[in-house]
């Protein structure tokens, strides 16, 4: 479990990508991460698929990129950063962390999303 971050520090915003349009993220991992986010009680944002949003230059990507500090549970950081950049909304190097549900375990991703700084 985590505890509340002091009010003086900006709270990281959490974004979960379901990768619903293609089954390239292991089902058990994305289900496991979602379960742990839901268990945590944290408020968070979730989208069906960041690639689908990027394909039609969804304006909400700009809001996500601007919402730092930010933690994203999705896939390979190289490609996630590329998606945002290609849409004209680059993720800042500092303040945006991408957790990789294709290569990390659900426990690792959830821990990274919910960690205290």
């Amino acid at each position, binding site marked *: 479990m985590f505890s509340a971050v002091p009010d003086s520090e900006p709270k990281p*915003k959490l974004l979960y990508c379901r990768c*619903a349009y293609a089954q390239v993220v292991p089902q058990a991992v994305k*289900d496991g991460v979602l379960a742990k986010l839901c268990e945590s009680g944290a408020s*968070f944002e979730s989208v069906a698929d960041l690639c689908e949003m990027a394909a039609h230059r969804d304006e909400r990507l700009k809001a*996500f990129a*601007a*919402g730092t500090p930010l933690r994203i549970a999705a896939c390979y*950081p*190289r490609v*996630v950063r590329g998606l945002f950049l290609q849409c004209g909304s680059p993720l800042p190097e500092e303040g945006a962390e991408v957790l990789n549900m294709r290569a990390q375990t659900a426990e690792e991703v959830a821990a990274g999303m919910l960690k205290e700084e």
Partner: protein
Amino acid sequence: MITHTHRPMRVVLYEGAGAIALSAEARAQLMATLLDKGYAVTRAGNGNGVSGAFPHDDRSLLVLGSFAGGPPMLEDATGKTHIEARDITGLGAEAVLALVEKTRGERPMNQPGTWKPWFPVIDYARCTNCMQCLSFCLFDVYGVSQEGKIQVQNNDNCKTNCPACSRVCPEVAIMFPKYSSAPINGDVVNTDDLRREKMKVDITSLLGGDIYASLKDRSAQAKSRFSKERSPDKALEERKKCLTKMAADGFIPAEVLASLPSPDEILRKAEEAKARALAAGMAE
């Protein structure tokens, strides 16, 4: 087919003050059900925990909650956003989905299962702007910015499950997020990947020089009846052979090959790209 219309609404699962929180299991099941149907879902709790809220630009919000006294009447103070609230007390995930679908009505929305987001993503940290991808792609997916920089400009033109351009990129700078294997899927590029990619296909050598040089040689060809080695037509024929081989190796779907544009179209595209790049260079 993808729709480029604005997302019809944003679903908010509200579990803050005035609403009864769902169990963690029910929450996860509900969110997974909505996400798998293509909805974006905001989980809003009591404000504790590590997360803050994102700003939103949605025109329509659907607020779901287990409201003890029935759904509240909500109105956006700015008047920009239409807000509706629904009580989901006692409803399972599928019943909530039905409620959400009914609220959406006929408004169009992309949904999983009907289309795959398939397009290249350029890793500009690796890209050297060599334009081989632009020369190679047959479907105008790539273009050149006003600054002369390679860009993905028409991702709807990309052929689903065809990652051929990424295979010919000498710097392994082209990724397809929905591809299964590294490094095309965006995984970290290692030295073995680089060596392997460079062993595959060198488009420049296929064309007997870069494509622009080939185009210049068209006029030279007119002057020399024996300049077969520099013939753009021959180069294009070799290029097609290369594609056929890649298809035989399972790299390119057969239907992609079946819809190849004519050599004239390819040359026209390259000439247009060159003109744009030159114009951009002169403007600087």
